[in-house]
């Protein structure tokens, strides 16, 4: 007896919607068992994960704020992933975007021209795109594996930022803290709502969703990218420019990640410091796949993952839950979501050897 995976001949439409619900139910069940076994009140734990973070307007704006960089990075990554371009380095591209935009803000410190903020947006996107261009060039020109190159460049970017804020860009009046000066007012993103941290970047990220949908699902370029991902042989036969598809994937991913970095630096942080992102660029990989590489799916997935981030923090503060436990719980949800999604497309069959033949008489 053994198990075999078979693709389902037709994925029922209701399954597509039922699987996330099934995953949520399984996560809740496991969560209850997990929290109860560790001696926490499961009800309170779950409430602090899923309800407490968003039971106020301020909570909702924090959710949107958290989801913004995830959404931006994941939308950009999806362009590449649909075409089998595996950019793992969004985190580094985000950091370089923050450096590029932050450098501009620091260079014009005290001058405050009105074009500064738009220029920083462009610089952020360009910085991220430039960082992503390195693995793109290496793959197209030398067939270097982009998973390795883009991932390793992330650490280069992190150290570059560390060097800058410890050295040349360090705030001279900052008591030797590794930070840049605070950005001037002209270099800070306007808030959408007074009393919160929600800024216009979130609005721009939301506008990027239909744009990404148009590119991915409705444009000829998006079609070419999908063909390159599904059947490279067919792309070669049709004469699609495979090099340009790699470039498009990396530039889109890098520019969006760079934009996310700019929004963080010029938004809630307001300066450059050694840590710009708690791993948004890596979490965005999960967000992209959780959203099935679809723009609107990614929007939902980014909100969910942002909620998990916030919920984990709330549970740590409220219930003194150790970070390891909140990490396990977050992992459980993602595991069930991706697993049930997989089983919606494949069925598991038990194959018994030797019992089938003989006459069964039909």
């Amino acid at each position, binding site marked *: 007896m053994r198990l075999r995976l*078979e693709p389902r*001949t037709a994925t029922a439409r209701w399954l597509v919607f039922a699987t996330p619900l099934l995953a949520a139910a399984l996560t809740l069940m496991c969560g209850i068992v997990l929290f109860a076994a560790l001696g926490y009140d499961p009800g309170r734990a779950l409430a602090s994960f899923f309800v407490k973070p968003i039971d106020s307007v301020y909570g909702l704006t924090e959710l949107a704020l958290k989801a913004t960089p995830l959404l931006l990075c994941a939308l950009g990554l999806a362009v590449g992933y649909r075409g089998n371009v595996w950019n793992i380095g969004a985190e580094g591209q985000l950091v370089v975007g923050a450096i590029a935009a932050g450098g501009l803000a620091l260079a014009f410190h005290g001058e405050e021209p009105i074009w500064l903020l738009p220029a920083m947006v462009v610089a952020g996107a360009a910085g991220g795109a430039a960082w992503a261009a390195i693995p793109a060039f290496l793959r197209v020109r030398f067939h270097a594996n982009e998973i390795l190159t883009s991932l390793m460049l992330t650490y280069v970017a992190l150290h570059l930022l560390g060097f800058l804020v410890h050295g040349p860009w360090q705030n001279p009046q900052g008591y030797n803290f590794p930070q840049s000066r605070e950005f001037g007012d002209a270099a800070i993103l306007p808030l959408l709502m007074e009393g919160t941290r929600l800024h216009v970047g979130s609005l721009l990220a939301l506008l990027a969703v239909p744009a990404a949908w*148009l590119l991915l699902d*409705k*444009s*000829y*370029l998006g*079609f070419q990218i*999908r*063909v390159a991902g*599904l*059947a490279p*042989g*067919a792309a*070669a*036969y*049709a*004469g*699609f*420019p495979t090099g340009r598809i790699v470039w498009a994937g990396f530039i889109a991913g890098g520019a969006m990640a760079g934009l996310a970095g700019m929004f963080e630096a010029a938004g809630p942080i307001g300066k450059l410091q050694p840590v710009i992102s708690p791993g948004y660029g890596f979490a965005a990989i999960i967000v992209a796949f959780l959203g099935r590489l679809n723009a609107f799916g990614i929007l939902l997935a980014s909100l969910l993952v942002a909620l998990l981030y916030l919920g984990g923090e709330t549970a740590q503060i409220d219930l003194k839950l150790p970070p390891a436990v909140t990490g396990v719980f977050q992992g459980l949800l993602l595991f069930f979501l991706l697993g049930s999604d997989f089983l919606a497309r494949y069925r598991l069959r038990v194959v018994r*050897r*030797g019992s*089938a*033949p*003989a*006459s*069964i*008489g*039909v």
Partner: protein
Amino acid sequence: MPAEAPSPPLIELRGIVKAYPGCLANDHIDLSVAAGEIHALLGENGAGKSTLVKIMAGVVAPDAGEIRWRGEPVSIDGPAAARRLGIGMVFQHFTLFESLTVTENAALGAGMRGRDRKALAVRISELAARYGLAVDPNRHVHGLAVGERQRVEILRCLLEEPKLIVLDEPTSVLTPQETASLFATLRLLAQEGRGILFISHKLDEVRALCRRATVLRGGKRVAECDPRNESAASIARMMVGADVAPARRSAPKALGGEVLRLLALDLAPDDPHGTALRKVELAVRAGEIVGIAGVAGNGQSELLAAITGERLAPDAAVRIAGVPAGQRSPAHRRKLGLAVIPEERLGRGAVAEMSLAENVLLTAAGQGLVKGGLVQGGAVAAYARRVIERFGVVARGADAEADSLSGGNLQKFILGREMLQRPKLLVAAHPTWGVDVGAAAAIHRALIELRDAGTAILIISEDLDELLAISDRIAAISRGRLTPLVAAEAAGRERIGEWMSGTFPSGSEAHAA
């Protein structure tokens, strides 16, 4: 059941049923092969031949039915059990490791006995001599021609001393001469009392070799016959269930100018086991079909890539519609009027997971289906529906996924997609490979219709019968060299067969050097 023969047949299948999700591959199939018999198993693609063979090989377990081996009920629980009974398989696709020698390949399948390489090599040489399967046991497989590789497969199978040998489409890659020598070997094996199950779709071969044939259609056994008493047409009728009108070659109407011209085309292979093209000269004129015969792996894929633009060549070496195009991209060449039907349908000619409408976009985007960078969904679906209607593609509709179609229907779709673009030059590789008889005839008729409309057509195929049936002029490719073209009526199977095996017409040696 007819009266039992004095000795039971070697293998007897009774009422074999095997269902896959959405299809009944074998529906109560009976089949028996006696010792000393060469039995043909006939049927179109999808008739259930492969499933039945896999059941005998122990790869697939039947849902119901009985297997008797020499009269005893048995269950074949896996490939090892099949081997123990004495069932040997020679598969259609080669299962040899290129980088190993003949002996090493044989040792892999021979288990413990494979450890003594010297003894094994001696044994291979003995078998080779006895059955006329000339092969050097110490050569590496990548250096062997296709015919030799098949001999290695058969030898590897014979090492197991099988009582029953199953050959799946063994002649599809052989020249006529190689086929004749394979048949001599098979007759010798049958005389020794072994049973042979011969799967083929080449009806003339079946009539020459077999005395009994089982015909499958749609998973059911529809007939058992003596092929010698049948005509190729009557067997085809049993396989298809309807009369098949073969495409008739008619004289080309009006020849136009040269649409494709290859001039001293040299091309290095892009993988180490590929074949280099050497000084290939070829001209195809508007309104004619030119066929290129040859055994697979003799440079066909390189030739195709050089014409389609997937491989670049010196600009002047490839002229399409009079324009030097050796350095042009596939997209550029399509604008010059090139259309291509590649060898692999899924993964190259079409994307398996995409709908037929989306697959239209693969090559027909230039037909007004993309505006301002956006795909015009309505126009795309309409184009797909036109292809489906015009070319009789059996499909659920324009939104059916490409891999839900049978091979023949998908090929009709790909052909239709290319034809509706009114190409000046159509290049087709193995256009009817793995396609059932009915679809093959439809494809041939469509190609001739396109030719009569003034398109230059180049067909690269391993199926010599197909080429002789529809080409106006024909050449053979061998080890990367192309013979001059001759008129198809004057070609003759034997002569083309010699060319395919590398014996070139005198005089052409000189320009190839």
